[in-house]
């Protein structure tokens, strides 16, 4: 009992260090599984991300909280390691070694993909909302924003005066999309030609969810990460811009 107390208090005091240890074990185990059981056909990082999502589910189930594994007290350090601050630092670091020429070549296509991606998200999200009986412009726009990213949804909802239940739904929609992108990208990459920096720039602009794109590309081909992340980082801002303004006005004129 004494020993258990000692271990618990040390881990609680060193929760960031514990997070590094846990992540190291998860990544190592995932690569070992990928090598041994799939012959390297499934990327070790893809398995690691899937394991991370399962752990997040388990954490939510065990604690009833919203931050996955980070809600478990002695694993709170995972929240710092996987939070926005260090994630952004690591994403920016991946840009080291990117060739400027690649960016210039696909610059225009990246811009087009951003606009198309945001339009698609709002169209798909608001029509789905309509089909499920959310037929007022406020709810349709908010859930449409959630289909863009889990930040665009609540920002749009707050701006157009949506209720907290609809806002919660839009966040859930955004998280489902991010999870689908994390798991789906490595599986679907060969079919959609996601093999070059140019394709990654377009993919980042179309999908837009920074967490989904960051993890999806990591599980597909790590060298593509900076290109996809570059365009995806503009998506949420643009979505927050057009959601409560242009999109809301258009949807309101359509459904009254």
């Amino acid at each position, binding site marked *: 009992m004494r020993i258990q107390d000692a271990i618990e208090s040390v881990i609680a005091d060193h929760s960031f260090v514990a997070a590094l240890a846990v992540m190291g074990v998860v990544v190592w185990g995932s690569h070992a599984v990928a090598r041994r059981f799939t012959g390297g056909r499934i990327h070790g990082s893809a398995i690691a*991300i899937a394991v991370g999502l399962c752990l*997040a589910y388990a954490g939510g189930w065990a604690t009833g909280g919203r931050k996955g594994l980070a809600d478990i007290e002695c694993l709170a350090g995972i929240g710092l390691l996987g939070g926005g601050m260090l994630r952004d630092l690591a994403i920016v670091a991946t840009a080291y070694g990117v060739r400027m020429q690649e960016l210039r070549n696909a610059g225009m296509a990246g811009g087009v993909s951003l606009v198309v991606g945001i339009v698609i998200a709002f169209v798909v999200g608001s029509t789905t909302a309509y089909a499920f009986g959310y037929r007022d412009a406020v709810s349709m726009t908010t859930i449409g924003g959630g289909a863009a990213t889990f930040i665009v949804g609540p920002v749009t909802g707050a701006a157009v005066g949506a209720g907290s239940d609809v806002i919660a739904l839009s966040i859930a929609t955004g998280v*489902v999309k991010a999870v689908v992108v994390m798991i789906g990208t490595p599986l679907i990459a060969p079919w959609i030609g996601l093999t070059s920096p140019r394709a990654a720039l377009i993919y980042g602009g179309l999908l837009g969810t920074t967490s*989904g794109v960051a*993890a999806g590309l990591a599980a597909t081909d790590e060298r593509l990460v900076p290109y996809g992340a570059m365009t995806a980082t503009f998506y949420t801002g643009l979505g927050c811009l057009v959601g409560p303004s242009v999109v809301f006005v258009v949807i309101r004129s359509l459904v009254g």
Partner: protein
Amino acid sequence: MTIYGTAILAICLLVGQIAGVLLGRAIGIDANVGGVGIAMLMLIGVTSSLQHRGRLVPATQNGILFWSSVYIPVVVAMAACQNVRGALAGGAVAIVAGVAAAAAAFAMVPVILRSASVVREPADGVHGEA
């Protein structure tokens, strides 16, 4: 020293994020528009100019490369912090809308890729890109 590289990286992120927030304010929204993207462009610019002048010694590079090499575990930790249970409990509309939005965007990748390469082909020829 290694910290020089990490400091360059950190300064790029901070300046980029500030620029992103200011850009958001300029267009009238309370959100960060492309802060990380701006930081990435800055890092590419700063490091290539240092490299050009021979000032980017291996120790400095290591300060950047370390953070890019821990990218995967950071992303796995990020995945482990998602509200997966809440998302699945959100109900059918959240699941259908989330899956459909991802599927529709995936389907557009080859479409834009194809039209982009049609437009780009002659330009690539002129530049003699491999």
